């Protein structure tokens, strides 16, 4: 482990990786909390996988895969949100279709790209050690948008997540707020993909908030604790993976999943004693 800290002091790529972890934790703590309390992790998973299509097309056209990912994520979020709000169609079927067709589209475009084959693995499983300085600035920009949106819209988002019908009764623009929230989820997904890749992103998005939910009972404290946990998982995962040269993204996720299981067992044991007579 000492080896990691020595390297951290000397190697700029490790410093960049640490900063990327911090930036990702902020987004995953704030937005992961909404995803967990609104129970839309399947929706977020659909957005994450459809991103592959955008990355593939951007790569084929010679553009930035990150920009392609961003466009694809927001487009899928809007499609899913509009269908849910206005057509009331089978939302889960649609998400499944977007999930798979996004992946398929991405693979076809990448296969047709002339020149050397891109390292698919880094899209799928993340490349936190290869995050460039430019990417860090972009991630910081996305964080700024996310933090700004939450600071401005904390109450309305809370009302829409909790009881949309009542929020509509109070005259809030519920549909607009819901779509906006989904777009912010899309933004967060793209940001987190930098760290753990699109296959594992859903775990980093939901596990810290799910663990935090075992201990705190307000949305704002859920966000704070989830951010802190995200920070622990990304930095500890990075440190653990460095010595034995394990994939960093996968190590971060396994660490988070391990803590989630332990925490679930502990809080399940404690619950029956704490409140024997809730809910009549």
């Amino acid at each position, binding site marked *: 482990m000492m080896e990691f800290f020595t390297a951290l002091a000397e190697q700029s790529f490790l410093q960049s990786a640490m900063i990327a972890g911090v930036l990702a934790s902020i987004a995953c703590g704030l937005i992961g909390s909404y995803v967990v*309390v609104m*129970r839309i992790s399947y929706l977020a998973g659909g957005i994450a996988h459809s991103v592959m299509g955008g990355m593939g097309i951007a790569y084929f056209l010679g553009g930035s895969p990150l920009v392609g990912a961003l466009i694809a994520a927001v487009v899928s979020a809007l499609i899913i949100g509009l269908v849910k709000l206005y057509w009331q169609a089978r939302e889960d079927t649609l998400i499944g279709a977007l999930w798979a067709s996004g992946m398929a589209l991405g693979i076809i475009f990448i296969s047709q790209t002339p020149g050397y084959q891109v390292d698919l693995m880094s899209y799928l499983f993340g490349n936190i050690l290869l995050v460039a300085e430019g990417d860090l600035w972009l991630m910081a920009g996305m964080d700024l948008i996310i933090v700004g949106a939450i600071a*401005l*819209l904390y*109450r*309305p988002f*809370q*009302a829409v*997540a*909790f*009881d949309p*019908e*009542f*929020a*509509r*009764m*109070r*005259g*809030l*623009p519920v549909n607009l*707020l819901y779509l906006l929230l989904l777009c912010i989820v899309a933004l967060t997904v793209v940001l987190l993909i930098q760290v753990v890749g699109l296959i594992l992103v859903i775990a980093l998005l939901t596990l810290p908030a799910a663990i935090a*939910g075992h201990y*705190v*009972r*307000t*949305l704002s*404290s*859920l966000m704070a604790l989830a951010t802190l946990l995200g920070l622990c998982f990304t930095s500890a995962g990075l440190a653990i993976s460095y010595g034995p040269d394990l994939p960093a993204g996968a190590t971060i996720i396994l660490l988070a999943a391990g803590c989630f299981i332990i925490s679930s067992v502990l809080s399940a044991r404690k619950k029956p004693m704490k*409140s024997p*007579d*809730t*809910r*009549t």
Partner: protein
Amino acid sequence: MGRFPKSIIEFDRVSFRYQSVPVLENITLAVREGEFLGLVGPNGGGKSTLLKLIMGLISPDSGSVRVYGTTPKKARSRLGYVPQFARFPSDFPITVEETVLMGRLKQRRIWQRYSAEDKKIAHKSLEETGVAEFADRPIDQLSGGQLQRVLIARALASEPELLLLDEPTASVDSHQEKGVFDLFKELNKRMSIIVISHDIGFITDYVDRVACLNKEILCHETHAITPDIIDQMYGGHVHAIHHHSHAI
């Protein structure tokens, strides 16, 4: 009925279909200011749909709905709404106080802050419904009856002129049910109330008038509920239970 000078709700030959299934047919109904109206009828008889039309959450397929002389959407801010028991996730991380403060959300505004005034009103509502002691508790630590009172407090925090309640006592036992209706009776001194109930015998002790709903309005006077009408409404499988009706 000089006690009810003006109509606050007017349904004029209103019909509503859900997909192709008719839910309400040719409803004409007026609700007067200060009135305490009970809505009864079988499941699927259109009671919740009627409330949603009043709130402008849905629009009629034909006919017109006027609320306070204007469209339901424009009148929304004057209404308080208590939904059927807990449709939202019961483990949502939110305190009682935060829940009630949602009644203070402002119309068509994106930026929302709660003022000291908002908090004062929220606490007054909690006291009025008898759950002020739970203000800091997360809602998942409340019993069904307590949560119901919190939801009533949330509606009161909007300072409504008309309170709409969808089966407010579905999740409480009959002892608590009386307490909740005593509260409504008290509230009725300063606001109009429409309450959906499955318990026709019980509510006639409290309300000014009952509207029996099964796609159509079958009757709407307390004293006019006869076994014949109950037969017509529920299809003849219900025993009429006589009880004293108190003077209102």
